[in-house]
């Protein structure tokens, strides 16, 4: 029963969970960002276990290597400091953490109770770039083209939103200097 597959799954899963809990526990956003990067890397390992090699590579290149770089840039540019403990956040922690804990335990119990013993083999469905590419260009062509338009809209929106306002009479802040 204890196979290498199970050990690797538990190892990557433990890293992912530790990263997720660390994201909640840390007060400085840069530490949360780094733990999120650890979660993404662990999930890339999980995808490899499931045979999705291309998805794992794209997870590392796009998610951990570009989206998180964007987050880290913003934290550095805005000089985000340690976050404060306001009254609202204390209430949220008092009710939120047990609530979410109970909710997730409930979901886990239901899933584990109602599932059979069917197992997912390691590398069950090799997702090679060739097969994924043919799917993307044949069955999922319309969503593919629409997502490219979505990215174009996102780029234009981000450039417009983050650009300098037309008049800035005060002394330039760090964000304006770097822009």
């Amino acid at each position, binding site marked *: 029963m204890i196979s290498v597959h199970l050990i690797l799954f538990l190892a990557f899963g433990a890293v992912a969970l530790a990263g997720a809990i660390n994201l909640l526990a840390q007060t400085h956003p840069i530490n949360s960002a780094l733990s999120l990067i650890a979660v993404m890397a662990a999930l890339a390992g999980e995808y490899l276990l499931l045979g999705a090699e291309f998805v794992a590579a794209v997870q590392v290149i796009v998610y951990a290597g570009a989206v998180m770089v964007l987050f880290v840039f913003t934290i550095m540019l805005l000089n985000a400091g340690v976050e404060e403990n306001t009254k609202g956040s204390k209430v949220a922690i008092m009710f939120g953490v047990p609530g979410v804990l109970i909710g997730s335990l409930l979901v886990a119990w239901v899933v584990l109770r109602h599932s059979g013993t069917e197992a997912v083999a390691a590398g*069950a*469905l090799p997702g090679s770039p060739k097969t994924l590419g043919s799917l993307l260009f044949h069955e999922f062509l319309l969503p593919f083209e629409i997502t490219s338009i979505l990215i174009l809209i996102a780029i234009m929106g981000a450039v417009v939103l983050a650009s300098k306002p037309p008049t800035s009479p005060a002394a330039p802040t760090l964000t304006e200097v770097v822009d």
Partner: protein
Amino acid sequence: MVPLSYYLVLSGILFACGVAGFLIKRNIITIFMSIELMLNGVNLSFVAFAAHWHALAGQVFVFFVMVVAAAEAAVGLAIIIAVYRTRETLNVDQVNLLKL
């Protein structure tokens, strides 16, 4: 052999951590990162189901989720920069007036 339900439980716990972060944290950027954590949890369940039912469409859907997450991160961070410029704070509790 790892049962499918183990993957689903891990995905569910990651999603729950994302929801908890979204509700508990007070820094806008950390809230955003909790959203990304939720999306990652969902991606894991997509890939697990794709492997279980031998349907590659699950992995293709992960692409679309990643693309949407990237676009949303870009626009959202631009909004955060714009909000920081006017309000000079990243604490959501202090961004509660429509006009300064």
